[in-house]
Each structure stands twice: as C-alpha cells, then as structure tokens.
C-alpha cells in the first residue's frame, strides 16, 4: 500500500507492505492524506531488511538520556543510515537508509512495539532534511492559535512548553492547540511566515492539518516570577537555531538553515518568557503577544 501525504505544502509518499501491522496504525497521518502525490519531494518504503554496513561512520549520536529517544546518524559512502531507539538502553526500534539527497528512504522496523515510533522518526528526519533548503523548519515547539495567529513556545524538553499551552487553553479565551511538539514553520513564496500542524506531535495526539500566520516565537524559561521580554536579533537567532531539526553539520543544509533563520529573525517578533506554571504566566504572555501589531 502506498499513501501520499501533504504536510506544510510538501508532498511525500509512504509505502508499506500489505498485511504489515503499521498499515492500521497511521491514523495520525490521516488528516494529511492526499489522493495522489504528483510532486513528492521524498518517498519512504518500509522493507524487510535494511543493511547495516560495516563501514558506516557516526556523524551524529544524540545524548544518552533515559527520558529521550536515542538517535544515531551514520554515513556509509554516499548513503545516510539512521538508527533510533525509544530511549537509550532499549533495543533499536528501526533503521533507515537514505540516498544523499534525502529523496528516497528505506526503513526496517526492528520491533513490533517500536514500529510506529520508528516510522514516525524516519519520516520526520526525511522531512526536516529534505525541506531544509525550502525555507521550511521542523521545530521543537508547542503551538497555540489565538486571534487567527500562531504562537510558538520553544524550550528544551521538560521546561514547560506544553504546560504553557495548557494555561492558554484554560485561561485565555479563543485559544486552540495546533500542535504540541513538532509544528512546521515555512516562509512562503510571498514572504509570509506560516505555521503548519503536522502528523507529529509528541505525546499529545493533536494532528491538525491547518496553518496560520506566525504571531511570535517565545522561549519559555523557568523562573520564580512572570515576565516577558523581546529578544535581540542575535538572541532570536540562537533560539531558532537550537529549536529546529535539520543537520547543521552538512554544509548545504547548514547554509540553507542559516538563511531561513536570518529571514525569520528579521520578520518575526521573538520573546523570552520567564515564568511560573500558573495562570498569571498566561495573562502576562497573552497581554503582550495578543497586542502585537502587524
């Protein structure tokens, strides 16, 4: 079975052998499914076997945090090899190989339980790497829509992005969650910056095929008080840099991401919110963010 999807305006295809249990586990992708992929930017195929080449060289190994998924990226000749586990110390969930251009990927799932996790991560990686040169960022953020605009909360895992979204949902009228972990930010051909929902949303099942103009990027920082401040362009750049997927080590991808960050820094309001996990935090952030003028 081959399904086609369109995320943030980019089409891709996913092929899974009939009878594979994954076929029945793709409900999070359903809102993004399209009939036919005419302009696919990449295709990923689930296969029985992906070789584990002896000559592979590590180019990236994520931190070994028992709370976080473990990812490793290798190169073998022209090919990229990507391995992932639900967390460090657990067996591998999947292995993917991709061509150099990230247009074709083959995924082998290595455990039935981790199969969907593996496929999700493989697709997220292909999407982030393939679209890096297309003014598109896959970001680590939680997103609230209010007044027709999207507000992103950015921070390392466990800081309080989702918590701040929940506070807006509870206390700020007109708020909706667009995505809780991996929204897509794209500079459109007309120069407008749009925020898209995606089939990937961390632990919160929130898979909305909707998009809204960007309101602001806000870094969440834990504090003993609530205060919101504008970031300088350089601080904003550092924030976007550390919150985006993509592989900055690859020269072409690094240059493309840099160009996207630079445009965003000039176009978009960026803030830091020092906050407690309380109602006043949402009041303080919304008072500033909802009064931004175009």
């Amino acid at each position, binding site marked *: 079975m081959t399904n086609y999807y369109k995320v943030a305006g980019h089409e891709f295809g996913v092929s899974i052998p009939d009878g594979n249990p994954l076929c029945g586990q793709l409900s999070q992708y359903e809102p993004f499914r399209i009939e036919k992929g005419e302009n696919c930017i990449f295709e990923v195929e689930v296969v029985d076997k992906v070789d584990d080449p002896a000559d592979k060289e590590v180019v990236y190994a994520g931190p070994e945090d028992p709370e976080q998924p473990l990812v490793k990226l290798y190169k073998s000749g022209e090919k990229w090899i990507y391995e992932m586990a639900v967390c460090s110390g657990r067996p591998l969930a999947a292995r993917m190989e991709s061509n150099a251009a990230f247009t074709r990927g083959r995924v082998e799932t290595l455990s039935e339980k981790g199969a969907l996790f593996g496929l999700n991560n493989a697709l997220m990686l292909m999407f982030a790497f393939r679209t890096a040169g297309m003014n598109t960022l896959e970001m680590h953020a939680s997103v609230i829509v209010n007044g027709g605009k999207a507000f992103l909360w950015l921070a390392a895992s466990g800081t309080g992005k989702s918590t701040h979204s929940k506070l807006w949902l509870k206390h700020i009228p007109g708020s909706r969650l667009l995505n809780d972990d991996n929204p897509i930010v794209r500079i459109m051909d007309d120069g407008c910056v749009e925020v898209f929902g995606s089939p990937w949303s961390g632990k919160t099942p929130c898979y909305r095929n909707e998009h809204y103009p960007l309101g602001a990027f806000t870094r969440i920082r834990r504090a003993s008080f609530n205060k919101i401040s504008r970031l300088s362009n350089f601080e904003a750049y550092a924030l976007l840099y550390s919150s985006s997927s993509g592989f900055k080590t690859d020269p072409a991808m690094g240059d493309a991401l*840099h160009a996207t960050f630079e445009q965003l820094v000039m176009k978009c309001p960026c803030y830091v919110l020092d906050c407690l996990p309380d109602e006043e935090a949402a009041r303080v952030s919304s008072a500033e963010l909802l009064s931004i003028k175009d």
Partner: protein
Amino acid sequence: MKAVKGFKLRTLLGEHIIVADGPSQINFNKIVMLNETAAFIWQKLVDFGECSLKDLTDAILEEYEVDEPTASQSVASTIDQWKQIGLVED
C-alpha cells in the same frame, strides 16, 4: 594553537558570528559575536591550521594600520577569551 573543530564563521544581519555546526560541538549552545578584527583573526586561525600568537599578530600588522603592541595585545586577549569558551586549543 589551533581552532577547535566544529565551528563556523557566518554573517548574520551584517555582523560576524561563530556558530557550532559540527557534531563534536553538539553541546555548545552559544553563538559568539565577533567584531571585524576578531573575525579576521578567526579566519587566519582557520587558514593557518596550527599557528602562534606571533603569526596572528603579523597577519594583523599586514592587514591593518596598527602598531605592534596594539596588535599583539588584541590577538592575545581575543585568543585568551576563545580558549576560555572552547573555541581555541593548544
């Protein structure tokens, strides 16, 4: 001494910055802003590979109209700062 691997000099909104682009610097979460002279020193450091304070001072003297004590002072303090934050190693 030499530049530590994994950093890249870029231009952001007309200013020079150093960002950690390499996988070896995955935990380096800073962006370092450089003035014109510092950017020049960094570029020379990368071009030279392995070099001394004197090599860098000579490069400055060739490029800019400054006296030797000013140039050597500028190189020494810049390299010292970079060593502290891990951009340069012996």
